[in-house]
């Protein structure tokens, strides 16, 4: 762990970029919420509000050739990775121009061009997949890191343990990123895990690990740099637990009977955007104009992307059975 590696170069430009990325994700999620209440987005919708620092801090550290596996709460990861906002909104609308042809919706954003291996609706379901991606790179000797994002809920699934064990046993270039927001849907971590210090579990599999304040985008970036570097250098897995909180409910239809309003309010004070913005302002690294400009740019991008989704077309019903299997020449 050299100083060069783990210290993010926090220039004004970089700081503004981090802030904008987080605001961009936040406004995107807010718009999704609004669109859902208007029944433009249907099915299940899981929003990332409060967790932006993790995607924004970690994903830009990865290279284009690296691979990402995520969960059903993956809009932030997808956007930061480079999935176009137009394709993302269109996908949520179910339109053909969506990144998954409209077939997946909110929980199944896929993008080959950015090596984004989905959105997965099965808790823990992406972990074995990420082991396989890393296994392929390991066997081919590729200099590629696979980053697998999952929540504290996945830690209870057998697949979590099987995947950590396999990754460590076979020495795979896999970065496990646990977004611990303290709740698996409606069940608090303390009520589902005998050991709530999640990163300690990695030690049982002899995977180096650390925990980081997931509400601090700079801390996340620094930790991600250390982690990705370790994986790339050693070819072995690394476990990064990001401690965070989701400011909204688990999904749209959730009365949040399982947690205190006071708790939510307390965490709102640690909102990663508010915190970072406040810190930047206090250190005179940004001006009010910067913020206005960022909000305006984001608003325009969102408006254009929503308009794109509204105007986009529906996949013809005749295509329903296409791509169950690969199209083969007759």
């Amino acid at each position: 762990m050299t100083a060069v590696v783990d210290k993010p170069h926090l220039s004004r430009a970089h700081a503004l970029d981090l802030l904008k990325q987080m605001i961009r994700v936040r406004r995107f999620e807010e718009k999704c919420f609004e669109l859902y209440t208007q029944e433009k987005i249907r099915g299940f919708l899981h929003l990332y509000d409060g967790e932006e620092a993790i995607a924004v801090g970690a994903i830009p550290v990865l290279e284009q050739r690296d691979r990402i596996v995520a969960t059903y709460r993956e809009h932030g990861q997808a956007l930061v990775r480079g999935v176009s906002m137009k394709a993302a909104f269109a996908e949520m609308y179910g339109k053909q121009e969506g990144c998954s042809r409209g077939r997946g919706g909110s929980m199944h954003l896929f993008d080959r061009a950015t090596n984004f291996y989905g959105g997965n609706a099965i808790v823990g379901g992406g972990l074995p997949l990420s082991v396989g991606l890393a296994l392929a790179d390991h066997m081919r000797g590729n200099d590629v890191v696979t980053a697998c994002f999952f929540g504290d809920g996945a830690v209870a699934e057998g697949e979590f343990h099987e995947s950590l064990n396999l990754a460590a046993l076979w020495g795979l270039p896999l970065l496990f990123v646990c977004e611990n927001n303290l709740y698996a849907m409606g069940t608090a971590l303390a009520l589902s895990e005998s050991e709530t210090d999640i990163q300690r579990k990695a030690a049982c599999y002899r995977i180096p690990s650390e925990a980081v304040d997931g509400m601090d985008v700079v801390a996340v970036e620094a930790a991600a740099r250390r982690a990705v570097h370790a994986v790339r250098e050693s070819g072995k897995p690394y476990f990064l637990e990001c401690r965070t909180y989701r400011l909204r409910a688990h999904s749209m239809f959730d009365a949040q009977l399982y947690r205190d309003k006071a708790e939510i309010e307390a965490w709102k004070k640690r909102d990663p955007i508010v915190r970072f913005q406040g810190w930047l302002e206090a250190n005179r690294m940004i001006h009010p104009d910067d913020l206005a400009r960022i909000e305006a740019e984001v608003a325009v991008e969102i408006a254009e992307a929503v308009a794109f989704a509204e105007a986009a077309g529906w996949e013809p019903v005749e295509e329903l059975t296409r791509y169950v299997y690969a199209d083969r020449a007759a």
Partner: protein
Amino acid sequence: MPSLGADMEAGTLVEWLIKPGDHVKRGDIVAVVETQKGAIEIEIFETGVVEQILVGLDSKVPVGTPLARICTELETKPGAAAAAPPAGPAVLPPAPLRPPPIAARPTPPPPPTAAAGRQRVSPAARRLAEMHGIDLSSVTGSGAAGAITYADIERRIGEVPVTAEKKRAPGLDLDAMRAAIAAAMARSKREIPHYYLAHQVDVTACEQWLARLNATRPPDSRLLLGALGIKAVAGAARRFPSFNGFYREGKFEPGSAVHVGFAIAIRGGGLAAPALHDAEQLSLDELMARMRDLVQRMRAGRIRSSEISDSTITVSSLGERGVEALYGIIYPPQVAIVGFGRVVERPWVVDGAVGPRSVITLTLAADHRVSDGHAGALFLAEIGKLLQEPDKL
């Protein structure tokens, strides 16, 4: 009312946190809605002034119902207030997107017909045809792609060969008639649960009345006992509708009129029971004339199949052949057949004394799905009663 979940259809407004005149901005919590999962706070996406609350507390409304009207900042510019109150945009969700209606997927083309030369016959039809000796190659199928169905075979069975007489040389095809009778009788025995009743009726009064009447008439206009019998059956059938009509498709349809089928046998084995339409309204003379006409046409092979299918109840008599009682087989889809045996001189008790009387045995074979012995007994008794007053028939 916002949609908050895939299975949310409606919500109940339990708390308003705003009132008309309040300023609201995007992201504010403005109301609380009770749903099946618990109370959920509603946030607003507009910035402006609350103009009007549209839904009251404790109202349960479907998703998409406007809850309040908000004037956005665009409309509260100075100067606009003087104009007629603008209809500020309500918190109205635009009509939910609907994917294009799913056109009915084209039904796959029916599988190719069987190899040339092999007819498409359903298993049920095949079996029925076999039971009735129907030649499949003579049947036109009404099923998918010309397949022969059960109903096609049933129709073929129900057809009486005499109707084809128009296309052929005059005369009956007795073989075809026999086959049709066989089919109908077999079906009757298979499908109709027959029950049987017998009743002895004193017809002395009828005989005496007929003797007095016929004494004054030439032979070809004399009445026969059979006419009296048919009239009596018709009268009784009018009073006991469950013996007059058709049993079809699982239910009984009482006849609107009484058309008595008159069973006529001809030399060579032909048998049919064409209808005497509205028999109970005919006078005995009219009835007798029609009966003569039917017998004549029957021998010439000029009975129409509709005349047979019109019969709502059948009367059969073998009295001239000498049997005392005959138990008939109901001709489907009728539900009863009345049999008349021969007149027999019997010792009978009348007014306490034994004396010779002319007695005839009436029988009833009836469909137990429609009537039971009790009703049958009353029916037969009624016929017997009517035959005691021949002048009133």
